[in-house]
């Protein structure tokens, strides 16, 4: 199941040119960009792992795209997203966040129902990917069994 998180998530995956254009838009507004990755696609997983520090004072999208590509190389089967943060007073929040990579196979989610007292039903979303330990959820096809860390 294709997950839809962040801006543009109902569009076809962005090409590198389109990603560059979006980063350029963010930088044009003075929003510094940060690259984050995860292998836990649960919608409530807001805190992804940071790929390096947020990049301040960049003028050109090439710098962000270089980091995106470095992250893609280190984590070829993870979700990778770019966050653009608007620090202006009154907003001070992530202004734009979009996926730039997703795993080849996305197993999707299952809805769990838990029946409580008085036939009340509690619902929860269960991600099939998280049935395996972190780092082995999206094996690299034909590659080594990734541990989710950069191979050095």
């Amino acid at each position, binding site marked *: 199941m294709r997950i839809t998180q962040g801006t543009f998530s109902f569009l076809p995956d962005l090409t*590198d040119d389109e*990603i560059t254009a979006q980063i350029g838009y963010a930088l044009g507004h003075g929003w510094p960009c940060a690259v984050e990755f995860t292998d836990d696609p649960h919608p409530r997983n807001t805190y992804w792992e940071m790929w390096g520090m947020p990049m301040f004072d960049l003028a050109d999208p*090439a710098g962000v795209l270089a980091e995106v590509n470095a992250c893609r190389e280190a984590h070829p089967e993870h979700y990778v997203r770019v966050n653009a943060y608007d620090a202006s007073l009154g907003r001070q929040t992530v202004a734009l966040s979009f996926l730039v990579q997703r795993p080849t196979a996305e197993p999707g989610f299952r809805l769990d129902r838990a029946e409580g007292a008085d036939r009340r039903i509690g619902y929860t979303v269960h991600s099939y990917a998280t049935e395996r330990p972190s780092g082995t959820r999206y094996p690299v096809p034909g590659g080594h069994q990734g541990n989710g860390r950069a191979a050095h």
Partner: protein
Amino acid sequence: MPRTDPVAGPDGLRAGTPDRPAAGPTRIAFGSAAAPPAPAEPDRSGHDTGPDLGPADTVDLGEVRRSAGVDEVLDALDRELVGLAPVKQRLRELAALLVVDRVRARFGATTDRPTLHMCFTGNPGTGKTTVAQRMAGLLHGLGYLRHGHVVTATRDDLVGQYVGHTAPKTKEIVQKALGGVLFVDEAYYLHRPGNERDYGGEAIEILLQAMEDHREDVAVILAGYADRMDTFFTANPGMQSRIAHHVDFPDFTVTELAEIGQRMVDGLGLTLSAEASVALHDYLELRVEQPWFAGARSVRNALDRARMRQALRLASVTGRVGMPELCTLTAADLRASRVFAGGLAR
């Protein structure tokens, strides 16, 4: 110019590398080759570089120069910068090369992207930083740089304080400079031959790598004194070979310095009286011989001090002063300088 994708990463890494096939049956991969191809000549500067041409077409090079704003930048250089004839000549040559390359690319001829990294050598106050700013504007106008901003870096900005600090620090500066010019002032301080535990060498390595990886995105300009830059290049042959343009900045003559001083005064909205112009010339004659002379910067400092003396003189006047008095530097303001009394002891 071979068709290059301006957004491909430093190692051409993108989705769809051999070990990661992007063309799954149901999957539209990020950045996949299935994406519509980028235009053959990406419009990088906002200027239209013009349509592709066939072998029979002809091009008005003057028109190309005008539309890229080359003449504008070069004329402004001639108009606004005093002296520096060899530098201006070098920039004209370079601009001509870039224009011709640009047009060759439109004809479909394969031209390698020219190396834009440069080395500016010259004594302090000979206009290296100013020319670097102009250079950025010129390269931006020609479409070789997307933004044309200048990021100035010195040793402090590039070299870290402990193991593992240098590489991220240097990379950060390089990233900030992407799309513009990275101006490394006094580059020879990066290299400290006596101290093998110094991290300067690491910064140089990262810089060299960035100069290769981001050849398309950034022009690195190293600046410094001629003799010390020569030593620096001897110790770092890799750097020498990656820099295509060595531009030597000659010292200003006294007449040129006086002209610069005149323009500075105009820029401040002041005027020099006739005697003050003579005094300025006399001052510079003496000043160039004295220690710590720093070209145009010394002229600026001298004028700043003259303004202070003028202000003090006016403040101590009893009675009324008008516009002409407030806006005129007199010979006395300049001749009060200690330069006329022999200057600093050597």
